[in-house]
């Protein structure tokens, strides 16, 4: 995907993307370990450079990610009845479960969100 991004950018063009990912080597290592198959530190920077990008910058946004995940969960809980009316109970529960999983995995130190910036040479 990053190679395709590099191709459609003009020389000097800028790429910026947010991504959240499991940190490898930080969990228990079991079958249900959310960090299984995760990213090691610096992996995204390596991928950007391998795709031909330069001036790679990584900004840790994990604290904001946690805050936003908590806010989604908490605000949606306040409006549970109204949201279930339009989403349906199953969809509402699945979304809440997803936000809660993100909160718990960040608090456990096994998930991060970063902003990456780079330039096409």
């Amino acid at each position, binding site marked *: 995907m990053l190679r*395709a991004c590099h191709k459609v*950018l003009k020389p000097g063009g800028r790429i*910026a*993307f947010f991504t959240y990912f499991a940190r490898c080597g930080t969990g228990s290592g079991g079958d249900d370990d959310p960090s299984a198959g995760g990213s090691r530190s610096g992996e995204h920077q390596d991928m950007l450079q391998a795709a031909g990008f330069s001036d790679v910058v990584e900004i840790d946004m994990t604290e904001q990610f946690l805050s936003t995940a908590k806010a*989604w969960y908490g*605000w949606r809980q306040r*409006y549970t009845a*109204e949201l279930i009316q339009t*989403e349906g109970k199953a969809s509402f529960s699945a979304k809440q479960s997803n936000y809660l999983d993100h909160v718990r995995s960040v608090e456990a130190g096994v998930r991060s969100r970063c*902003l990456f910036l780079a330039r096409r040479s």
Partner: protein
Amino acid sequence: MDELLENPSESECPPDWTVDSPAHLIVERNVIGANVGANGYTTLEQADELERLLRLQQDDRLLDIGAGRGWPGLYLAEKSGCEVTLLDTSDADLRRSVRRAEAANLLGRCSSFRGSAGALPFRSRSFDALIHTDVL
């Protein structure tokens, strides 16, 4: 390069009450900071940071991959004056993004395409800047 999506009529693009209900609007405004059709993690403050870091200018062409309903690509175009191209795999979301572009008076500077990030349907060296938010 063929644009895959035509501007939808109102009847083809009814409101999405899983996003646009009064309760959803209250929740989204408190979490994201604006009503932009978002359900992810990029807040208004972070979108402003993207615009600053990318130094977007009026003549720039911006590509938003996995644009969904147009957040934050449409916002960045509105704020910087640049052109924006939205790419997503969902026809329904793209129709809603076009409706949002129309509401923001951005149709003249916005195009929408259906496609995936792995096989971008654009010529080489087409864009000055590219964003994606939690797609990779």
